[in-house]
């Protein structure tokens, strides 16, 4: 009994040293040397200033920008406190939020897309993401927003469409996952067009 307790404590001390400290320290050393951009959070810079991460959505409300999916975090798109919305599949709150989101999109995009109806809105545009910081929107949702962005920025629609495909992340190795458009990267590239 006593011997087992002493042995347990010894094993805990050693495994804490090995798995708690040495293992992550070695991995951090390797990561910083070999993949320093990814290891530090895939940060995006403009003029030397961190403007976000290509792996985190941020709040876009301006009409010149592509907008993200809804977020359940507080405040929205909080990359330091992620959360699901957790509404059940038959929840009245979910129905209400989806309805509000549909109305908001029809109001925002309607003037640029004559004849726009609720059936044209892809489901990812009205549902919260799992993380609250999903960096991607579906290609369908990007296409829905392209006329507005082109009009507000006085750009040809073809230019905006070309940039959408440029910032569409395809399936990994051509098969794994689903395609999505990285909103922050796309908006950053659009802003940079103006800088030139």
């Amino acid at each position, binding site marked *: 009994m006593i011997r087992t307790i002493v042995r347990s404590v010894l094993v805990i001390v*050693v495994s*804490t040293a090995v798995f708690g400290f040495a293992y*992550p320290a070695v991995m951090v050393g390797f990561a*910083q040397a070999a993949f320093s951009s990814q290891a530090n959070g895939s940060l995006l810079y403009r003029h030397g200033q961190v403007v976000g991460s290509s792996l985190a959505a941020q709040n876009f409300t301006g009409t010149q920008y592509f907008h993200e999916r809804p977020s359940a975090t507080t405040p929205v798109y909080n990359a330091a406190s992620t959360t699901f919305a957790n509404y*059940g599949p*038959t929840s009245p709150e979910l129905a209400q939020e989806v309805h509000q989101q549909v109305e908001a999109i029809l109001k925002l995009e309607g003037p640029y897309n004559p004849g726009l109806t609720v059936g044209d809105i892809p489901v990812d545009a*009205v549902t919260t993401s*799992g993380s609250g910081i999903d960096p991607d929107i579906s290609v*369908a949702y990007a296409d829905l927003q392209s006329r507005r962005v082109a009009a507000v920025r006085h750009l040809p629609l073809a230019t905006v469409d070309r940039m959408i495909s440029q910032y569409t992340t395809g399936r990994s190795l051509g098969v794994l996952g689903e395609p999505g458009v990285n909103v922050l990267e796309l908006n950053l590239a659009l802003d940079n067009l103006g800088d030139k």
Partner: protein
Amino acid sequence: MQLEGIGQIILYAVVLLVLAYPLGQYMAWVYTREKDDVIERGFFRMLGRDSGAEQNWKKYATTVLLFSLIFFGLLYAVLRLQGHLFLNPDGMPGVSWPIALNTAVSFVTNTNWQYYGGESTMSYLSQMSGLAVQNFVSAAVGMAVLAAVVRGISRRSSGTLGNFWRDLYRSLIYIMLPLSAIVAVILIWQGVPETFSGHATALTLQGAHQSIARGPVASQISIKQLGTNGGGFYNSNSAVPFENPTGLSNFVEMLAILLIPAAQVFMFGRMVRARRHAWMIYIAMFTMLAIGVAVSATAEQHGSAVLRQSGVSIAASATQSGGNMSDKEVRFGIADTALWATATTDTSNGSVNGGLDAFTPAGGAVPIVDMFTGEAIFGGVGTGLIGMFFYILIAVFVAGLMVGRTPEWLGKKIQAREMKLAALGALFVPTMILVLTAVAIATRAGQASIFNDGVHGFSETLYAYDSQANNNGSAFAGYGATPFSAALGAVDMLFGRFVPMLAGLALAGSLAAKRTVPESAGTFRTDGATFVVLLIGVIVLTAGLMILPALSLGPIAEGLMHL
């Protein structure tokens, strides 16, 4: 669902088998090797005289229990005191007692139920010295116990099962550490952070400040998947892009979830020299997994009642995956989220890449049933296959009754003592889940945790005690932390972990002592299709019938209300 989605699921099944088979052979070698390596000899010198000696089942079990108890105490202390300790760049205060109790039990039992948001509650010290270490050690404890149980089954007229410290050492050094490093490297490459710097602050394009949580994420995520742990660095777990940035990272993490439990089936086959029997077990497990994926993926693609009625476009097309995208991520879509939800609840992993609370009634029922089988469909590292052994004994016993002979399994006669242990192992946890769910739903203190009203609130409660009892850790995450739910959950996890484990060790002790009897014409063959059908039947009849009444109060009622 699009063809690409189905293709990914099939590809997953193939790659899993290709990796798991050789790994199983390797693991059998690891646990049966006679000679200790150099470091191992030093390890035993440090632990003292006779520390590497053979142990009988009682000694083995006592060692496991004491070791877990002491680890629990230390982990609890670190969580309570983290505010006064080092490696705390973001200044996290100590964790309150109910949450610390639940979390410490949760990690020691390999559950990783999260009543806390990782990035907003835990200091780096807690994440690294407490949680990350437990991700390795609690998983290795499960693997060690399985190794002992399998050894017991394979031995004849023997009083011992092996040595816990040796099994623990070999699980950690020969299996967990190398696999974990490999997976971590892939994840870092794909974009999972691995740094000791604190949060990064960004000035967004619209001029706001955004704080971005980072840390030694990749090294922890790799082991959380491999060790069927599941506790995330971030609150939204593997739905968060920093834990799971791409389709490839998602694929690798899903493989890591099932890899060791699948390999252990082949390890068992080799160690007891019954490879065809092991294949039959694999086929039975895989069949049940495939049914779960098919139901879940179809239901999620069909979408929830609310989304269908809203009129938005939910049909899959070339430009969107469609379906029930509530609390799901665009880069995973429906197929990958449904596959993950099934894999994570078949094993005792419990990490999620989308919110399960938002799953459709049928999609959400799949994880509940998966877990309720006692994680016997692959199951947790170690503990899962032990759960399956209980069902196998029941199946063999039923077959014996049909032909009126003493049942045999792998040349051992199965008698009253073994059947009592198997019944205890198979029935204790499901019974406890139903009782605790009833307690939580019937008391005001329990109801306080419910987030969604009505029948969905019942599903949340059932899910919480189902998940914790089976050391899974996934959740209908609306279900909230109160001191009551945290303490009840801690009890749930402790008994759910150690009762089946002790039953398994006792069973192995009993089987090890038996002599083998030669196979005769009347022996029920456990290496054919009949056995597979019988085994699945036993699982459906035992676990399935027990969960059905509760299921009809939750997901079935919800599904019928909104057809």
